[in-house]
């Protein structure tokens, strides 16, 4: 079979429809690639038997004229944060390293029902807390990209690091991700992929291991914008089991990919210019604006005055919610247990040994900001600032259709960098966190490469539920950028 990185969901689905290839053939090729690509450490659990079974069932359906749409028979990676019935689900944590769910998350169930073939569970930062995929209990993930002329191991970004390594390394056609503060978009930018986070509530959170419930959203990681639209369509649904699930139907995002950018009003938020940001990123951003102009869009400089407070707000809200969500890991009902003489000692030892350093740090911060006497000063204050951040966006989207920004303040960095200082690591998410806090849909599209030949992404953000406009703008940007570089 040709270079596996040539396959997209759209081309593979067409080829299967025309009978040029079967799902079993595709799946076997990707299983072989997954096994040959183990040095990337992209998968925590491989499920080749399950994949072959589902691929055979898909071929059978297609033969009978019952194919279920463009995801049917497509081999994908599943972030190991989605509970999968009968398949170990770890959240990359020691505390869940023996957990086998007896139920299926809504998102992975939707994909399964659409016929997608799960190759395995992809690696991530422990409990999705991280921006470099270096906090996994199962070891760090290697970025398939390497800087030109150097022999350095780069991080794939995080937290969906295993998912992007699998797709960009040609071990899967697409993969699922989750995004709390940038965990889909930043790794997509680091690996030359498209990463899309829908409006909060489009994808059900039911059965997805929770990090920060008011921010967590699932989304697709794919090679093309059209693929992201196809996959999102299969993942999203209204789900009564998640009370924050949006009771509305996702518009036809794939159709939106065929529309041009003419007449779009594209906002450039001036606060997204950072001191010390690499010149190449500023240059690519300007180039992005220029592309839109040439396609007949109108460029408008806008201001989102509370942008600089987004990251500190996030680092109160997310740890607070995490400390509360992670209280369930008590060594009693499931997961790892370390015995102790008393119940309290058992809890403390279980959690002290079961959680890694970054998770502990965030749970402690969260516990502190929620504790008596500090709740108003930290948590309530942060939720007030969050309101102001969301209002900034609301005002702007009365005037422009879409915002264009860089996705991340740097290209992929070497393993070992930014390890000593948590705040330096947190800064990776400076451009992605604001849209998360406001619940807005956003997408990272590969825009170009830097001087070392490493990919850089551009981010587009639209108003609540404006996914059609987002995909329209993203397709236009993708076409203008013509990104074809490979690891």
């Amino acid at each position, binding site marked *: 079979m040709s270079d596996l990185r040539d396959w997209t969901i759209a081309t593979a689905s067409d080829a299967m429809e025309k009978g040029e290839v079967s799902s079993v053939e595709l799946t076997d090729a990707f299983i072989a690639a997954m096994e040959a690509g183990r040095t990337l450490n992209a998968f925590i659990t491989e499920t080749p038997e399950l994949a072959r079974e589902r691929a055979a069932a898909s071929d059978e359906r297609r033969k009978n004229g019952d194919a279920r749409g463009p995801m049917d028979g497509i081999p994908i990676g599943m972030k190991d944060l989605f509970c999968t019935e009968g398949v170990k689900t770890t959240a990359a944590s020691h505390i869940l390293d023996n957990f086998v769910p007896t139920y299926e998350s809504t998102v992975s169930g939707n994909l399964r029902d659409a016929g997608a073939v799960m190759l395995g569970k992809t690696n991530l930062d422990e409990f999705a807390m991280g921006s470099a995929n270096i906090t996994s209990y199962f070891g760090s993930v290697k970025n398939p990209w390497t800087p030109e002329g150097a022999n350095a191991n780069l991080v794939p970004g995080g937290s969906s690091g295993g998912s992007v390594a699998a797709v960009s390394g040609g071990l899967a056609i697409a993969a699922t991700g989750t995004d709390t503060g940038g965990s889909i978009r930043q790794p997509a930018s680091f690996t030359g992929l498209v990463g899309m986070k829908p409006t909060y*509530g489009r994808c059900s959170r039911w059965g997805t291991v929770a990090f920060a419930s*008011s921010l967590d959203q699932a989304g697709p990681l794919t090679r093309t914008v059209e693929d992201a639209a196809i996959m999102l369509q299969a993942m999203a649904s209204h789900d009564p089991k998640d009370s924050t699930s949006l009771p509305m139907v996702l518009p036809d995002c794939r159709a939106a990919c065929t529309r041009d950018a003419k007449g779009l009003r594209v906002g450039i938020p001036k606060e997204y210019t950072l001191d010390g940001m690499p010149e190449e990123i500023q240059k690519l951003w300007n180039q992005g604006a220029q592309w839109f102009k040439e396609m007949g869009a109108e460029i408008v400089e806008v201001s989102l005055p509370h942008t600089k407070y987004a990251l500190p707000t996030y680092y109160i809200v997310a740890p607070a919610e995490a400390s509360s969500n992670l209280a369930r890991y008590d060594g009693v009902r499931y997961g790892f247990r370390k015995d102790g003489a008393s119940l309290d000692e058992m809890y403390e030892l279980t959690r002290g040994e079961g959680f890694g350093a970054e998770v502990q740090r965030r749970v*402690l911060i969260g516990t502190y900001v929620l504790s008596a006497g500090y709740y108003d000063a930290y948590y*309530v204050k942060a939720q007030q600032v969050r309101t102001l951040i969301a209002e900034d966006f609301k005002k702007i989207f009365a005037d422009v259709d879409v915002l264009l920004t860089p996705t991340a303040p740097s290209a992929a960095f070497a393993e070992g960098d930014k390890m000593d200082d948590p705040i330096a690591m947190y800064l990776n998410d400076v451009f992605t966190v604001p849209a998360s806090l406001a619940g807005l849909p956003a997408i990272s599209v590969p825009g170009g490469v830097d001087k070392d030949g490493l990919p850089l992404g551009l981010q587009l953000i639209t108003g609540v539920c404006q996914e059609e406009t987002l995909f329209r703008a993203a397709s236009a940007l993708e076409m203008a950028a013509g990104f074809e570089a490979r690891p």
Partner: protein
Amino acid sequence: MSLTKDDVRKIAFLARIRVPDERLEPLAGELNNIVGWVEQLGEVNTDGVAPMTSVVETETPMREDVVTDGGVQDKVLANAPDGEGAFYGVPKVVE
């Protein structure tokens, strides 16, 4: 406001995370850096601003008050580290 070693010990107990004594001091330093950094929110005027409760304005959904699940004891107990019959086992809590 600066966190001391004793504060960290107290928070760690509230979070039920055992932190070895020699980690308390360095952890206090790390947490102080983060807390000091988020304190810049103090400069934002939030008088009269409602704290965000929901990112997308929707109504709270209502449903029929009926049983829709249950009767799956085996599944519920399947992952228990110390399942004893139809129960979860824990260290003795009553003298």
